[in-house]
C-alpha cells in the first residue's frame, strides 16, 4: 500500500514516513505543537475560529460542512461545559485515511483537538474510535500519556491558564455511529440512534451541552492552518474548497493507498491512470465510486478525457461528490448489479432500525436484489427498486437513508445494461 502526496507538498502526510513517527519526540522535532504554542501565546479563541473560517476547511468526514462555521455556532455565553468530540468512527466503505493518520501521527490529532478546545472554551474532549480499531486506541492512549507528561495536556497546558483533557472512547461495530448525533447517543452509553436536528450538537450535543463533532482529518488540518495562516492554507486548494484532501484508494489499481492531493487537483483520469499506477492487470476501467460507498457511482466515460477536477464543486459537476474521499476503482470484470447488491446489503445491515423508511426499505431492496440474482427478475424490477429508493431518500430520519439510495439510483441509471440482462424484458431509464 502506498502513502504519498501528489501535486503538493505533503501536509497531513508530512511525518508518516519518518521512523517512530508516532512519538512525541519525532512530532516535536518536525514542527509539532508549534501551532498550539502560537495559539496560547497570543491568539484569542475568536482569532482561531477566524483563521479556520478563512482557510475554507470543510468537514472531511463526508458532509463537507465548513468547519469554521460549525465552530462559530457554539454559544459563547452558555453556562454549560463544552465538548469537542473527534469522530474516528471511520466506517464508510472505501475509506481508511483516518486510520493511518492516527496510527502514524497521533500527536497531530491531539494538537488539532487542543486548538479546537481552546477556540471553543472546552475542557473535555473525546476521541470516539470504531471498536475494530482497538490498536489505534492503544496508540492514542500512549500518545496522550506522553503529552500529559510533557505538560501539553491536562492542567495549565504549557504553563498557561488553558486546561484541557482528552479521553479515548470505543464504539462497538455500528456504521451509524459515524453520524454525529448517533455518535453522541453512543457516547452517552445508549443505542446508536440518531437524534432530531435541530437542536444541532453545537447547541445541545453531548449530555445536552454545546458540542462540536469533527472528523480526524478535519482536526488534523487545524495545526497547519494556524501555523501558515488560514489564507495560505486555503490557497493550497480552491476558493471554496481550501487546503489538501486525503483520498483512500482501493480496488483495481496497481497502487492502492492513501493519497494527499491539493483540493482542485485537475484530473481524475490522470490520478487513476498515472498516480495510482493505472489499472490492475491492465484491464479497462469500468466504474469508480470517488467518495465512499454512499456517493453516485461514475462510468468510465464520465472520467476518461473529461478533466474531472477533484474538489467539492468539480466532482458534483462531474456527477458525483467528494464524500469521505473513499475512492473505489472497478475494472471491466465487475458487474455493477452485484456491486450495488453488495452495498445495499451493507446499508441493510447497518440501518439502525430507528425509522421505518430506512429499516424496511433497505431490507426490501435486498430481497429484490436476491430474487433477481436467483433468476426471478421481472420486467418492472428496476422501476420497483427506484420506487423503493424514492420512498427512502429524503424521507428517512438521518442521512443513512440517502446514502443507501444514491448508489442504487446512480447504478440503474448509469449501468442499465448490468440490470437489464437479469430482467425478463428491456426497460427504459
Amino acid at each position: 500500500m502506498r502513502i504519498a502526496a501528489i501535486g503538493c507538498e505533503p501536509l497531513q502526510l508530512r511525518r508518516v514516513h519518518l521512523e517512530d513517527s508516532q512519538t512525541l519526540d519525532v512530532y516535536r522535532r518536525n514542527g509539532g505543537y508549534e501551532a498550539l504554542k502560537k495559539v496560547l501565546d497570543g491568539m484569542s479563541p475568536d482569532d482561531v475560529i477566524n483563521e479556520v473560517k478563512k482557510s475554507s476547511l470543510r468537514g472531511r468526514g463526508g458532509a463537507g460542512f465548513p468547519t469554521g462555521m460549525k465552530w462559530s455556532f457554539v454559544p459563547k455565553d452558555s453556562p454549560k461545559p463544552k465538548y469537542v468530540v473527534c469522530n474516528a468512527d471511520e466506517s464508510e466503505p472505501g475509506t481508511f485515511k483516518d486510520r493511518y493518520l492516527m496510527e502514524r501521527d497521533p500527536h497531530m490529532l491531539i494538537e488539532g483537538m487542543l486548538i479546537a478546545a481552546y477556540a471553543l472554551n472546552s475542557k473535555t474532549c473525546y476521541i470516539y474510535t470504531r471498536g475494530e480499531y482497538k490498536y489505534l486506541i492503544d496508540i492514542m492512549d500512549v500518545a496522550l500519556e506522553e503529552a500529559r507528561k510533557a505538560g501539553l495536556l491536562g492542567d495549565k497546558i504549557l504553563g498557561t491558564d488553558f486546561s484541557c483533557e482528552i479521553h479515548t472512547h470505543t464504539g462497538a461495530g455500528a456504521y451509524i455511529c459515524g453520524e454525529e448525533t448517533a455518535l453522541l447517543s453512543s457516547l452517552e452509553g445508549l443505542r446508536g440512534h440518531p437524534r432530531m436536528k435541530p437542536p444541532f450538537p453545537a447547541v445541545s450535543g453531548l449530555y445536552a451541552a454545546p458540542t462540536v463533532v469533527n472528523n480526524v482529518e478535519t482536526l488534523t488540518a487545524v495545526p497547519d492552518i494556524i501555523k501558515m495562516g488560514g489564507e495560505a492554507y486555503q490557497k493550497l486548494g480552491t476558493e471554496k474548497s481550501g487546503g489538501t484532501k486525503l483520498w483512500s484508494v482501493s480496488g483495481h489499481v496497481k497502487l492502492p493507498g492513501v493519497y494527499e492531493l491539493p483540493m482542485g487537483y485537475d484530473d481524475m483520469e490522470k490520478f487513476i491512470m498515472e498516480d495510482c499506477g493505472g489499472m490492475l492487470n491492465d484491464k479497462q476501467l469500468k466504474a469508480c465510486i470517488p467518495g465512499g460507498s454512499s456517493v453516485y457511482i461514475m462510468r468510465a466515460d464520465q472520467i476518461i478525457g473529461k478533466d474531472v477536477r477533484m474538489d467539492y464543486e468539480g466532482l458534483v459537476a462531474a456527477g458525483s461528490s467528494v464524500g469521505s474521499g473513499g475512492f473505489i476503482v472497478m475494472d471491466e470484470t465487475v458487474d455493477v448489479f452485484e456491486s450495488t447488491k453488495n452495498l445495499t446489503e451493507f446499508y441493510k445491515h447497518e440501518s439502525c432500525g430507528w425509522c421505518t423508511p430506512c429499516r424496511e426499505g433497505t431490507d426490501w431492496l435486498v430481497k429484490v436484489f436476491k430474487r433477481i440474482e436467483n433468476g426471478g427478475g421481472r420486467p418492472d424490477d428496476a422501476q420497483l427498486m427506484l420506487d423503493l429508493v424514492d420512498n427512502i431518500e429524503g424521507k428517512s430520519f438521518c442521512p443513512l437513508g440517502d446514502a443507501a439510495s444514491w448508489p442504487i439510483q446512480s447504478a440503474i441509471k448509469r449501468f442499465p445494461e448490468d440490470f437489464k440482462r437479469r430482467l425478463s424484458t428491456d426497460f427504459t431509464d
Partner: protein
Amino acid sequence: MSTQIVNIQPLSQPVDLGVEAATFSPEVEAEIDRHLAKYPVIRSAILPLMFIVQRERGYLDPPGVLYLANRLKVRVTDIWEVATFYSMIHTQPIGKYHIQVCKTLSCKIMGAGKVTEHCSQKLGIKVGETTADGRFTLSEVECLGSCGTAPMFQIGFDYHENLTPEKIDQILDKLP
C-alpha cells in the same frame, strides 16, 4: 365476574436473572475505574466496560450483564438494550479465535469470497459456525477500514491484510 389482581412491578425493580453477578480481579476493577473516571455520566462507560467483560469471560454472559448493571447503576434491560445493538458485543459464546472476513465492496472485488471459502474449507465450518473444539468462529462482516490492503480479515482485534491462501494457512497454523 372475578377480578384478577395484576401486580405491575415498578421499572426500577431489579430483574432477577437467577445468577450471581460476576466478580473480577483487583487489576480489572482498577482498569474499570479508570474508564469510569473519564465521564461525568458513568453510563457512558458502557461499551468500554462491555469489552472488558467480554475479554475476561469470553462473552457478555448473564453474570457479566448483572455486574455491569450494578456497576453502572442502570437496569439489566439497559445493558441488554445496548448489547444487542452493537455487532461486536456477543451475548452468546463464540470461539477463542473469531475470524471476521470483510465482505464489503473493495474486499469483495479483490477476492473476499475466496478468503471465506478457504477458511471454511480449512476449518470445516460454514460462515456463522464455530469449530467443535471451540477454537474458531467464522464470520463475514461489513467494511473494516482496510480497503487498500484487501482482501483481509480480523482475528479478534488483529488485522491481517493482503491475504492469499498461503498466507491464511500460515496465520491460522501459527495461532497458539
